């Protein structure tokens, strides 16, 4: 709409000129594939699921209105709390760890060393691999007896847990996997790092600031908007984590055993999937989806609200 703004006069005219009208329709026509897609595939399902969450719906019969019954049932459902707990763990433990790792990698990759471009590529490579493939790969890496991870641990005389089979270690296994993929986050940090003006560092060095101080007082504040962005994206991603659990916890076509040992990998999205497509409780699953939406929304708002205290925008 910005492009046509100059054509508009500040005062609303009674009628557009012929040309203006033509431009309006033309613009709309060009935007229409997106508009139609947005209405049909985003807006309609969005409100559709809100309606369905207030019904009992099994896909085949017509939805039956039940009011807030689904939400009440969810609050009394053990599986809801188990899945919420598992998901929170990933959001609040895995995301910060991965973020810190990405930042560390980015700082290291920012050095002007020989062949640095090769290192950058190597660190980014894992992000190119599809989750399904990397999850299958990691089942081998984490094999307690033959896996590389435990071989390394044993070489140092460290305990070698039964990673994916022991309910205490299943989530740490996933964290390990996500660390391996932290090159994607590092790339974004790296781009931001290179945008930090050199004068700051030079000035700080003249004033006698050490490397640690330069990092703490210059690099981090300069990166803070990017950290906020990655934190929010990471949290949203963590709340939707599904594939790793589905692959690692032996997801079968018949939906037999989702969730892994002692339901330790029963994440919110896995539970939602099971309720919807195995138990055919679409209304209940829609309600679960709305609760997830609200949680993510609140979390994001909270972060944005508090971000004023720690995020530094260069322009201000």
């Amino acid at each position, binding site marked *: 709409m910005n492009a046509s703004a100059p054509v508009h006069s500040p005062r609303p005219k009674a009628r557009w000129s012929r040309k203006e009208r*033509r431009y309006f*329709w*033309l613009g709309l*026509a060009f935007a*229409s*594939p997106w508009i*139609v897609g947005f209405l049909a595939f985003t807006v309609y399902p969005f409100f559709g699921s809100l309606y369905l969450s207030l019904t009992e719906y*099994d*896909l*085949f*019969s017509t939805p039956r209105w039940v009011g807030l019954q689904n939400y009440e049932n969810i609050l009394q459902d*053990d599986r809801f709390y188990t899945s919420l707990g598992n998901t929170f763990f990933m959001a609040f433990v895995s995301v910060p760890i991965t973020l810190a790792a990405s930042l560390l990698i980015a700082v290291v990759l920012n050095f002007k060393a020989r062949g640095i471009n090769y290192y950058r590529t190597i660190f980014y490579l894992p992000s190119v691999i599809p989750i399904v493939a990397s999850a299958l790969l990691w089942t081998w890496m984490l*094999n*307690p*007896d*033959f896996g590389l991870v435990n071989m390394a641990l044993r070489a140092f005389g460290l305990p070698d847990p*039964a*990673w*994916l*089979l*022991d*309910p205490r270690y299943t989530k740490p296994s996933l964290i390990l996997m996500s660390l391996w993929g932290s090159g994607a986050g590092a790339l974004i940090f790296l781009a931001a790092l290179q945008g930090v003006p050199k004068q700051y560092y030079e000035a700080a060095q003249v004033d006698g600031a050490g490397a640690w101080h330069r990092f703490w007082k210059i690099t981090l504040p300069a990166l803070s908007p990017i950290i906020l962005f990655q934190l929010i994206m990471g949290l949203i991603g963590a709340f939707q984590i599904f594939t790793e659990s589905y692959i690692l916890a032996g997801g079968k*076509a*018949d*939906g*037999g*055993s*989702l*969730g892994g*040992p*002692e*339901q330790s990998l029963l994440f919110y999205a896995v539970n939602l999937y*099971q309720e919807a*497509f*195995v*138990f*055919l409780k679409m209304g209940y699953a829609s309600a679960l989806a709305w609760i997830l939406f609200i949680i993510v929304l609140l979390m994001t708002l909270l972060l944005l609200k508090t971000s004023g205290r720690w995020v530094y925008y260069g322009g201000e």
Partner: protein
Amino acid sequence: MKKKTWFGLWCLLLSIMVAGCSGGSGSTAEPGKTSGEEPDQPAAADAVELSFWYGWTGPEAEALEKLIAKWNEAHPEIQVKGLSQSDYQKQLTAITGGNPPDVASQFGQNVVPWGLRGAMMPLDDYIAKDGVDLDDFVPAALSTSQHEGATYAIPTAMHVSMLFYNKDILKEAGYDGPPETLGELKEYIQALSIVEDGGRLSRLGLWPGMDAYTFSYAYGGSFYDEAAKQVTPDHEGIQSAIKLSKEIWDQYGSDNLDRFSSGLGQYMSAQNPFFSGKYAMTVDGEWLPTFIKQFAPDLNYGIAPIPYDENHPERKNPGNVTTSVFYIPKGAKHPDASWAFIKWMTEPEQMAEFTAAIGNLPTRTSAFASPLYENVPGFKEFLDYSASENLKSFPATSFTNEYMTEFSAQVDAILRGTVSIEEGLANVKEKIQPLVK
């Protein structure tokens, strides 16, 4: 005029996009295509074309395609096009979208949940009209497709588990034959397991997390009281079965068992723990002898009935039956033709040809005698066992999947000691009973 041109262009663009999408899904490789379009085939001009989605892939799909080709040759008026579609969710979306396949395969445990919700067409009128002899079917297999007198699918193949034992290991321990009773089984497991210093296991008599359904039936357990409309996960027989598992489990402990099981090889390989002698015994299905022939041809093993409760000899040869079925989805365009195909596919001759090729058991007793099974390893024992009167299957209800999921989750928690047997089973009941309608 110009506006119209733009509008037309836009419509064109949209229709290309839509056509592109549907073209994408339509062009998926169809193994059936070659057989269905051979020029010498007398496909009638006004032939009905049936789409048939099945979950089998690879060599199993090829076996099915052979049968489809046979049908197409004999029935020019009804041409079937098979599509290997192992993503069963697609069936859900297709039925909901009003454009389902004409015939589809499914797991037995989904039949009644889907059937009661109206996704599967009841077949009783067809069965009555064509006089299909339902008494010919293994009762436990048929019951996976039935609920309160309605039949929603025809079981075409079934699975049941038996006890496999390593003859060499048993002999070494001084046993001439397999355990016959549950009491003996416990003894055998003790004697056959090897615990090294520090508690590390190097061999297990039998993995303690064995199939809870099979052993529940061995103890006379029942999961549902139809008359009282009560779920009964706390049934005495089920408790006994879980107690047996729990006793063996606790003897070795979760840590050692996790460590031991994590070091075990892939199921479909020569390193399968039973093939490599890490398990002295295992409870497994009729497909295992075929795998043994393929991966461990030198294994000296025997197949025996599931041990029975010595206090109840009338419960000899217990077992848990699961099935694969064919059904007509709601909204199928040519149900009469679909039925004709399903009926033909589940006739003893075709059933024997298909199940023998994929190494599954037939669901019709009249197919048991087919010479086709002679070359399938282990089928002599399994076909005999399939005639046992003590075979059961999980009660088919609208909440079967929820029930089984909750049950296995709680059994896992019980074995790992998070909850007691009583608590765990009470949890199942508390969660599932409200679903009974």
